[in-house]
């Protein structure tokens, strides 16, 4: 009774597909090929199919049975003909190693695309190796030999595969179902895919799960700990095979066959349930969260492994840490401590002391009322306004301070430094050092300072220190293969010390008259 129903559903689906293709003006043709090939029960079976589904089923007799359906979709008859001719199925190898390949041209002129869907029966003791790019479904069933699958996108299902296995994919999902307790190692590696492993509840395995943005969940008894983003533990008794599950941004689930899915628990939540110091290792163990909040009513304290943070206003101190992600804050009433293992920081008006660091990426700050410390291991720093002592450090990248109303200490390994002093400042201590790059210091014409500027340059002819202020004494001397240019002098009779040092660049001390920026204090 069921068969006619299923057939009619498939027929309807095929009809719909054809109608859709017809409406789109496409021509579709399916060519079916069947082939019987010899293969020893201890042999290997390889298949390389760039586009199309693959099903491999292990059976209890020698030889390979292949059914391939080649589908070509084309805009016109000429393209259809070309597609049919240029989509080639190649049967290669011998009874020890059998290889099936779908050959497609790297580029083709006609307006067509094709795929091949394979259904294959092999001796269940053989070793299987699958290479694919786009496969909606790769399904491998009942294999005792080793299995290797490498794909790019789609669902990969391994049912009752008991040999050593390696699965490597980028997008999609991996579902691995053991019907018997695992006895050999399995390694599943993905980038964006979720990974589900089902196994008998009494299995003994060593489980490794690693995900940066996703979660690690199980309903089995596990003893384990996080080491950074990597979870290492044992299921039931130790000493079993290693099941390694690694995905960058997907979830990892280890499920007991027949156990209640409602009992799934997040191991990351368990790991951080007790108060822990916020070391980097623990930060990576915390669940990945992305937060977007218009207003935090008081103190805001947030930590995540991987995730972006965006808060419009924090009415109190802010303390934010992410192992990787962008941090965007509008207005912070109190002190502000933000740290990202990598990712840009975009901070607005910080009324308290600012302490901001990113492992990599640009940092932009609108204003730091009390100054503070801003650093990146690599990237540009742009600070529009500061009225407190401020230290800026970059492992490589420009540093720009648009209006400095407080002492500045800026240092970059490589990049330009541009500092504009607040026009209301009569004198201010400043230090700027760049390992490779230029320094531009913009000062009000009445700014008073003791200047000590040094350029070390390979260009002996370079006129490397320029000043709009009169009275600087410039000395030039050889320093090994380079030339050291040293300028000292007093601006407007002298004042706070300004120390500038640039290598392989030049220094400009210029006069500017700017209207001062006013930073509006927050309403009480």
């Amino acid at each position, binding site marked *: 009774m069921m068969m006619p129903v299923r057939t009619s559903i498939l027929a309807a689906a095929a009809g719909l597909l054809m109608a859709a293709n017809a409406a789109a003006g496409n021509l579709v043709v399916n060519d079916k090929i069947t082939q019987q090939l010899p293969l020893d029960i201890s042999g290997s079976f390889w298949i390389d199919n760039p586009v199309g589904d693959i099903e491999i089923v292990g059976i209890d007799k020698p030889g390979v049975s292949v059914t391939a359906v080649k589908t070509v979709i084309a805009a016109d008859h000429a393209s259809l003909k070309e597609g049919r001719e240029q989509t080639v199925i190649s049967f290669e190898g011998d009874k020890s190693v059998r290889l099936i390949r779908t050959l497609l041209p790297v580029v083709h002129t006609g307006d067509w695309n094709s795929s091949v869907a394979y259904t294959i029966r092999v001796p269940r003791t053989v070793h299987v190796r699958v290479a694919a790019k786009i496969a909606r479904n790769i399904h491998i069933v009942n294999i005792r030999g080793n299995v290797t699958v490498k794909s790019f996108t789609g669902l990969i299902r391994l049912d009752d595969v008991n040999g050593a296995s390696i699965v490597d994919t980028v997008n999609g999902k991996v579902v691995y179902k053991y019907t018997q307790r695992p006895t050999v190692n399995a390694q599943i590696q993905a980038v964006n895919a979720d990974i589900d492993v089902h196994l008998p509840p009494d299995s003994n395995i060593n489980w490794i799960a690693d995900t940066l943005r996703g979660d690690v969940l199980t309903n089995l008894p596990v003893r384990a700990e996080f080491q950074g983003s990597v979870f290492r533990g044992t299921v039931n008794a130790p000493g079993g095979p290693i099941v390694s599950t690694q995905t960058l941004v997907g979830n990892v689930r280890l499920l007991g066959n027949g156990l209640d899915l409602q009992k799934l628990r997040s191991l990351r939540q368990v790991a951080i349930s007790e108060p822990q110091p916020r070391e980097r290792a623990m930060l990576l163990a915390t669940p990945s969260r992305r937060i977007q909040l218009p207003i935090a009513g008081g103190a805001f304290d947030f930590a995540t492994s991987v995730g972006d943070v965006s808060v419009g206003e924090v009415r109190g101190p802010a303390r934010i840490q992410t192992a990787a*992600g962008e941090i965007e804050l509008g207005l912070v009433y109190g002190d502000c401590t933000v740290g990202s293992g990598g990712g840009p920081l975009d901070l607005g008006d910080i009324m308290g002391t600012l302490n901001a660091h990113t492992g990599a990426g640009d940092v932009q700050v609108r204003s730091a009322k009390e100054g503070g410390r801003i650093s990146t291991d*690599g990237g540009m720093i742009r600070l529009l306004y500061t009225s407190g002592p401020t230290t800026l450090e970059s*492992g*490589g990248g420009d540093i720009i301070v648009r209006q400095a109303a407080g002492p500045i200490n800026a240092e*970059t390994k490589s990049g330009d430094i541009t500092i504009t002093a607040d026009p209301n400042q009569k004198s201010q201590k400043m230090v700027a050092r760049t390992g490779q790059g*230029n320094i531009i210091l913009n000062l009000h014409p009445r700014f008073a300072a003791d200047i000590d500027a040094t350029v070390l340059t390979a260009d002996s002819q370079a006129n490397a220190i320029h000043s709009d202020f009169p009275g600087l004494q410039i000395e030039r001397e050889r320093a090994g293969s380079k030339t050291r240019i040293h300028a000292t002098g007093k601006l407007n009779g002298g004042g706070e010390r300004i120390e500038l040092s640039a290598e*392989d660049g030049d220094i400009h001390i210029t006069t500017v008259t700017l209207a001062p920026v006013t930073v509006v204090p927050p309403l009480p």
Partner: protein
Amino acid sequence: MSECDFMRESMPLLLTESLDPVRREQAHSHIERCPTCGEEWNGYRESWRMLGELPEVEVPPAVKERFLASIGEEAPAATVVSFWRRTSVRWMARAAAVVVLVGGSYYAGHRGAPLQLEPTPATINSVAPAVRYSIAESRVIPATAVSPTIEGRPNIHNISFIDTNPSDDDIGVSFDITSHVTVTGRPTDKSMVRLLRYVLENEDRLSSSRSRTIDWVRATYSRPGNADPEIAEALGNVLRNDAHEGVRIKAAETLQRMGATAASDTREALIHALKNDPNPAVRIKAVEALANLAQSGATLDPATVETLRQKAMQSDENVYVRVKAAEALSAVHP
């Protein structure tokens, strides 16, 4: 031995540029912050300068004999000599020689008879035509009048950029060559493109020039209609080769803003940066550019996809770079 003593011993070596770079830097730093040593150093330099001005005369034989005799008497008999002391002894001997030389010269200059030169008659063999030099010559040349082919490797200095008229698109590039030259024209003029490309790619030039040039290029060539494949190619070369990390960051960012990432050469430069650049900010800019390219629906070649895949899985890479690589892969259509 105090730091000041050590530095003073190093001063003769510093004077003759014989110190290794590390010690040279240490010596200069110390001299800059220590007023006493600074004074000492100024004295040394003044003596050295005066030595160059003094006439060369023979040391009186009596002085020479006394000096040689004193060295002979004080020569150490020990067979093992401390490594550090050797330098100081050698330089003290040299310093003593300088003192003797200066003293001898002074003695000879004041006690000896004044030097008399016999006048010699002058003859004129030929007369060259008078040369007229102009001071501070500056020329403005339209880009259309300049050949797009740059011959040789001209030495360009003091490059600056001018927007003479903000109401039009014309730009000006000023630089010193044999005279001060300003080339003006549209950003798309081939000569202007070649000139900027030369400044960007010429590794002999200062990185400060390239840094400013990239700022200018970013502002100018990011505008619609101004993007130029030669500029993109030059930026790709800067991204691959420049030793200046700040410049490489700007190059990657400019390439992204110019929308030039679709070109295969540019893409290769980004992949190279993503794979090899030691600065994480450069790698972030590169992976973001590739991610934007993938998300725009462009088809990425297998090498790019494989690089992104490797980066996503590289456990020692910055996590943000890995996540961005994963995001790019999620949008890829292989």
